[in-house]
């Protein structure tokens, strides 16, 4: 029988999917455990997360959380950097320590037969890091060199300028997470130790364990290695303040006379991850620029061919992270690109739903959930999201109903707040002689010339 190719085939019966069931426990001192056993593949992934990140770093120490997080596995009171790396790698395992705006993460992934030994090690790293002065100096120097080198990447430069324009230098979000040369240079070992005292606290610690380990095993390990961890006096963790309101559109052109393209960032303040409007905002973002078939990409890439790709991103942080449109465009078309970006935001703001695109966005958001939890790493990330942003424990199990329930009124109200173009910050890294005349019409414009060694202050 010949098949009919003239139209897309009808789907079969959908197989049921719900986010896997996981378990939560709490130790007496406040440490939380989130466990999702999965015995199919003999791997385990354990992550300890501390729920306070770079948003709480002093402004004069920008870059503290990434630097200090990187130092955690460079020595403990019992083991040196070399011993730690040798132990982990002989087991074939990976150990990672990192920090972002909202938290600090210490984790391992390995064959599950090694998870007990690795658990002991990461507990030690979280509780008793020694921050050896020689390692601090080494990582600081590497951080400084890395910052200097990233100042050559047009995308990085555009990104940090636009954050600076949106939040100002007095707000933690007003710089890249990597920090500044001044901040990194000013950090002393005592600052790192104080950082550890403030961040590593039982009440703000969550252990996420997924894979081929039982809840019983993890419960026992947690009790053994964290049970005697004394709760500290209660304190309110420092959070990013509300960003100052900005008025008017501003444009900054960072001159790169030889650049063969212009890196553009168009941004404003978005929403906190735990905002009740966040789901509506994600749907609007998917329509605007969050996927390949979003309006922006169909316009600037598929229709105008002035870029390899454009996307918009809603950065879900504890505070209101940036809402950013990013692309690298033909320098001759920078003005068209900015005009179209503003036009697409305005158009969606005027008519945020109900359209078929919102239904498609809902299906995309829900349909890709199984894809995103194929790996243990993906599962850890989802549980960590619940922990960091205090989402309901059944957040992902009830997500289908919540997504379906997002109404036109909610979309309209969210669009009114999020999709504004009167206070956009526009940063362009490219040849000013070509770009400046095209961008003058969009707002108050300044041109910045970065000469010689990059100014990363």
């Amino acid at each position, binding site marked *: 029988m010949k098949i009919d*190719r003239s*139209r*897309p*085939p009808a*789907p*079969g*019966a*959908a*197989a*049921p*999917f719900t986010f896997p069931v996981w378990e939560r426990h709490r130790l007496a001192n406040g440490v939380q455990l989130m466990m999702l056993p999965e015995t*199919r*593949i*003999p*791997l385990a992934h354990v992550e300890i997360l501390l729920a306070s990140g770079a948003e709480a770093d002093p402004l004069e120490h920008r870059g503290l959380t990434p630097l200090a997080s990187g130092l955690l596995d460079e020595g403990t009171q019992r083991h040196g950097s*070399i011993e730690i*790396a*040798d132990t*982990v*790698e*002989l087991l*074939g395992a*990976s150990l990672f320590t990192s920090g972002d705006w909202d938290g600090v993460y210490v984790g391992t*992934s*390995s*064959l599950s037969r090694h998870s007990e030994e690795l658990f002991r090690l990461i507990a030690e790293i979280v509780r008793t890091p020694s921050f050896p002065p020689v390692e601090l100096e080494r990582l600081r120097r*590497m951080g400084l*060199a*890395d910052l*200097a*080198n990233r100042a*050559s*990447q*047009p995308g990085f430069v555009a990104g940090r300028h636009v954050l600076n324009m949106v939040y100002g230098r007095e707000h933690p979000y007003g710089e890249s997470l990597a920090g500044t040369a001044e901040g990194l240079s000013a950090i002393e070992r005592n600052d790192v130790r104080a950082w550890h005292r403030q961040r590593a606290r039982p009440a703000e610690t969550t252990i996420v364990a997924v894979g081929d380990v039982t809840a019983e095993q993890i419960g026992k390990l947690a009790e053994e290695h964290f049970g005697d961890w004394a709760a500290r006096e209660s304190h309110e963790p420092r959070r990013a303040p509300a960003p100052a309101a900005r008025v008017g559109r501003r444009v900054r052109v960072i001159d790169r006379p*030889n650049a*063969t*393209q212009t890196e553009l960032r168009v941004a404003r303040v978005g929403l906190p991850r735990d905002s009740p409007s966040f789901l509506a905002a994600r749907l609007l973002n998917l329509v605007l620029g969050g*996927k*390949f*078939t979003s309006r922006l990409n169909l316009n600037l*890439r*598929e229709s105008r*061919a*002035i*870029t*390899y790709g454009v996307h918009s991103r809603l950065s879900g942080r504890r505070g209101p992270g940036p809402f950013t449109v990013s692309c*690298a*465009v*033909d320098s001759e078309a920078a003005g068209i690109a900015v005009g179209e970006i503003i036009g697409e935001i305005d158009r969606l703001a005027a008519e945020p739903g109900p359209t078929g695109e919102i*239904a*498609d966005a809902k299906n*995309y958001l*829900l*349909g*890709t*959930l*199984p*894809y995103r939890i*194929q*790996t243990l790493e993906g599962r850890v990330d989802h549980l960590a999201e619940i922990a960091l942003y205090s989402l309901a424990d059944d957040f992902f199990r009830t997500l289908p109903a919540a997504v379906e329930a997002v109404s036109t009124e909610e979309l309209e109200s969210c669009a009114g707040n999020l999709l504004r173009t009167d206070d956009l910050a526009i940063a362009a890294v490219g040849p000013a002689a070509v770009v400046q005349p095209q961008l003058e019409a969009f707002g108050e414009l300044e041109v910045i010339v970065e000469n010689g060694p990059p100014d990363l202050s």
Partner: protein
Amino acid sequence: MTDYLPTFPIERHRLANGLDVVLQPDSHLPLVAVNLWYHVGSKNERPGKTGFAHLFEHMLFQGSVNVGTNDHFALLQKIGGVANGSTSYDRTNYYETVPSHQLELALWLESDRMGFLLPAMTQEKLDNQREVVMNERRQRVDNQPYGRAFEKLNQLVFPADHPYSWPVIGYMDDIEAARLEDVQHFFETYYRPNNAVLTLAGDCRPERALAMVEDYFGELPGAPPPPAVAASCEPTSGEQRAVLEDEVQLARLYIAYRIPAFGSRGWLLADLLASALTRGKSSPMYRDLVQRRQLAQDVSAAVLPTELESTFIVITTARPETSPDQLLAAVDEHLERAAHEVLPSHAFERCRNGLVTSYIEQLQSLDLRADLLSQSATFLGDPARYLDRLAAYQEATPREVREFAESSIAPPHRVVVTVVPGEAAA
């Protein structure tokens, strides 16, 4: 040996038109990965027509007789599918992971562009994607710090007529000169069922899935096998060096050696050697260059999974106070030691354990697993060989790795490209 190794069943079928079909049922999630490899890449191009395989990949997302211009991604994304394609030296792949009840949609889309592309091609679509690809090249190569280093490296590693000597994305002039008749010729020569492997991994019933594949692909005509690519594997003799100025703050070295093809014993030993030297903080090069002497910001070594032959590449970024020569001398100490001293058994064990674990970690994703199956079917002639590497890691000995290093990774037969701070070439 690997008692912990997960096993997944594999079925293989060949349709009458030559399409190689690989099935790996695994129903732990209601997802199926559809992965289609065409055995054509930039090596099938010729000088003056570079970048065409990649440009052609873009054209395959521009619609076919029954699929509208922007519908491929639209139809997949609206059902929660994740899709893309990529081009390399020897192959071009197209893939989508979809909810399993939408498998038929994915097969309809892939078969329509395999069978019915040309009538939907227009000059306008070509012009448009040519501009997109030129912007892709600017974004990834020309306007990116260190972006031209690989291009220079391959130009020196391989003779000018060798098909790995030009970049996959192609030269700007060639991309600009691509014509509609090139699209037609390329399609008819290479995009035939007998030059492709279709892998389905995930939630599917093999008989049902195979019947569906037969329905959608069975009637597409096969074609004569595409012309083989001839390449001289004459080793380059001596050491060649090039220095590129770029808008960077830190110098970076790229050191490349020609080694045997993917799938050979030599390639595997090179893979082990690359890991033994640079993988993880306990590796000797990281520990010495980055941690102890602090000459380098980073160091890594890798081998490419290429078919005619391969390259072993060391990349290392100098600290601001380190000169490129000083860093190269330090790298050479390690390469020479690898050629003369057998790795200590614990160092070898570390590297092997790390490789095995990360390979198993990759198998968690249906899309990565499907891609590995297609790769094995295409390059090694048997999808089941996708686990060969794990067994080989277990069998190999430190002595063999040393012998390999001595014969293949010792100066003077190599290329060194250094990117230094300065002005970017126009």
